[in-house]
């Protein structure tokens, strides 16, 4: 039994992504404590942010691992498989919490993180990660991504969330209770999971070939009431929709390709429209959130990175079809260009949605004076142009074959993003404008390079 459990633990540790993030988590915790020891509270908090972010990623990877381990035949046929795999994942979970407790132990009172708040946040984040893993590649993926990042940024950026949890015992208890119930349900469900269960096929798998297999296994959706609202538009060539070959402009051709993912897009709009009144009510009621919205400049990562991630995640699975698509009577260069254009349109759309929901609408309710400042609008422009750079750079990275080059590019991009995150809001207007212009230019260069590389790529 011990040999078996050791092998299951090794299964996690041998996963490069898990080990890497575990390393970041531990080093974040250690350095945070080190800076505390050195009385450098600012750096200690920043290091804690790393620890906090990495534990969410760890929980996410753990969720993927659990599904990967249990949604297969081995779970039913190998002796003691389910119990021991779930046991080991619970062990990891307990270790994360325990580590957080040890980290927090003997903190000076001047540090705002208290044990109750910390536990609540950790448990809530782990549950969010579990939830995301659970829904997997259902068409709600984009919506959940938005919610996920919203929770993430709210949690790390707004001290008010910590205050709210710490100062409201029932809320802390609620988080704890909700987390435990969800985890219990998750465990029970995973102990019984069979192929016939609806979520079995929706595995977050790697490589994408497997994902496509699992999507094919699910088969076409049955027509029903909801599909009338959320279902795909008529396929190209049906009804009034012109065939791809009849579409002349790049815009209409780009829209043609985008129709493949449109069901999710429509759902996203409908979802947001339905939630808007509640959202505005919540913003108005939760006074603590003033701190967050007053600090609009700190929303840089939310506005510039999240739309990119949504677009890239939404389109990622389409790339594996390109080889097949190119067998159709389409030329490679315009085909790549049209796909890129479709993604850029989506990027613009999502960025606008974020500006609308995280700046403009709350600004109306909160009567935020920042909204009338020119610097504020320039700053929003910067988030858009930086989103373009991130999008272009990640697209460029997707065309790289060398792993080392990809990691190097990723590191540089992360450092640049952090630099922008910390410094952009402090720049004067002229610098912000120049920064945005440079971002647009750099983005353009990366897009051009990406286009050329993809045109030369073998499918």
């Amino acid at each position, binding site marked *: 039994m011990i040999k*078996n459990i050791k*092998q299951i633990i090794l299964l996690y540790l041998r996963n*490069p992504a898990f080990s890497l993030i575990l390393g970041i988590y531990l080093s974040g915790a250690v350095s945070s404590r080190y800076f505390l020891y050195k009385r450098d509270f600012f750096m200690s908090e920043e290091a804690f942010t790393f620890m906090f972010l990495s534990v969410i990623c760890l929980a996410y990877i753990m969720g993927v691992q659990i599904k990967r381990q249990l949604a297969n035949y081995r779970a*039913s*046929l*190998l002796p003691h498989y389910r119990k021991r795999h779930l046991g080991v994942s619970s062990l990891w979970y307990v270790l994360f919490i325990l580590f957080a407790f040890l980290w927090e132990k003997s903190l000076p009172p001047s540090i705002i993180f208290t044990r109750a708040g910390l536990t609540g946040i950790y448990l809530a984040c782990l549950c969010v990660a579990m939830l995301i893993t659970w829904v997997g590649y259902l068409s709600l993926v984009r919506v959940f991504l938005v919610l996920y990042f919203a929770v993430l940024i709210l949690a790390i950026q707004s001290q008010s969330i910590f205050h709210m949890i710490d100062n409201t015992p029932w809320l802390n208890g609620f988080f704890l209770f909700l987390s435990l119930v969800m985890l219990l349900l998750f465990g029970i469900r995973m102990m019984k999971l*069979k192929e016939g269960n609806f979520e079995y096929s929706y595995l977050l798998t790697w490589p994408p070939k497997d994902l496509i*297999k699992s999507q094919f296994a699910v*088969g076409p959706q049955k027509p029903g009431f909801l599909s009338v609202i959320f279902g795909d538009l008529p396929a190209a060539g049906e009804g009034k929709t012109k065939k791809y070959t009849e579409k002349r402009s790049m815009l209409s051709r780009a829209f043609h390709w985008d129709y493949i993912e449109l069901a999710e897009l429509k759902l996203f709009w409908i979802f947001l429209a339905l939630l808007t009144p509640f959202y505005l009510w919540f913003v108005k009621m939760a006074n603590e959130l003033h701190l967050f919205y007053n600090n609009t400049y700190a929303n840089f990562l939310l506005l510039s990175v999240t739309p990119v991630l949504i677009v890239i995640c939404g389109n990622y699975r389409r790339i594996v079809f390109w080889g097949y698509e190119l067998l159709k009577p389409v030329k490679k260069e315009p085909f790549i260009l049209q796909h890129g254009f479709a993604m850029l349109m989506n990027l613009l759309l999502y960025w606008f949605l974020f500006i609308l929901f995280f700046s403009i609408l709350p600004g109306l309710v909160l009567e935020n004076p920042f909204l009338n400042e020119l610097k504020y609008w320039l700053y929003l422009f910067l988030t858009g142009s930086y989103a373009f750079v991130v999008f272009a750079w990640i697209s460029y990275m997707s065309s790289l074959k060398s792993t080392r080059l990809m990691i190097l590019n990723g590191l540089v991009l992360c450092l640049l993003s952090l630099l922008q995150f910390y410094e952009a809001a402090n720049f004067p207007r002229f610098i912000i404008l120049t920064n945005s212009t440079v971002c647009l230019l750099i983005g353009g260069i990366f897009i051009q390079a990406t286009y050329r590389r993809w045109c030369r790529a073998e499918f």
Partner: protein
Amino acid sequence: MADFAIEMKNVSKELGRKKVLRDLSLAIPKGSVFGLLGKNGAGKTTLIKCALGLVRIQAGGITVLGDDPGNLHEDTKQKLGYVPQSDRIYPWLSVKQIINYTASFYSHWNDQLVHSLLNDWDLDSNDKVGLLSEGQAQMLMIILALGHEPQLLIFDEPVASLDPAARRQFLKTILKIVSDRECTVFFSTHITSDLERVADRVALLKDDKIDFCGELDVLKDEVKRLRIVAPVDISEELNISGLIFCERSHHEAIISVRGFKPEMKIAIEKQLKAEIEVEDLNLEEIFLELNR
């Protein structure tokens, strides 16, 4: 002790609205090499998954080594080996690591057998699983299923991705395992020549039911092709029981029959005053005839 490794009684299974198995009964005797045949989409994989409890059945009952597959006891799992059509395994692990990982679940593991199979199939234990070809991954899956020397081995299209040499090696291994110790092998395949080489019993799945289940030799004796040459034109309607197929050309006819008996030949000879030649069919021909 039950005499059957797998016993299915009146099993029904639907996938969505589609009936895949309808009131199906099947018994696989212990110690047999049992082949399952059927067209694409006939339900072979579903039948195997039902037998292993990987999917729930809507009606009927199944026992595997005397146990309920929906809730297999850990001891029963120790005696089971399964290789699916395709599998997802952790691409970042090496062959050696995935073997150690799998071995750790079982109370008995034959390292010697595993290493000899790795050698036979030229699999490097340090290679990453993600870098293996489809055929090599299939070989690895077979090795993982054999390592704990199970009493019941279930293969779903095990040789689909293997080259002829590996296929031959696989069949040799199966025959050796069966001859060395009491082991039941249940497998589905499209490659009827392989099945003919190793299986002693077959089942034919057709129209969501078992069309034939029994010894391979019985099936071969039962299905025959007759070449009939009559002195006069052969009439439109041949009144022959078990007629599957008939191709007429004036005074000649080629017919396939099921449930052939020597008396049948004599009766037709008398009826048509014809000369009849009886042809034996191989399994592939039988499969084609029965699926017309």
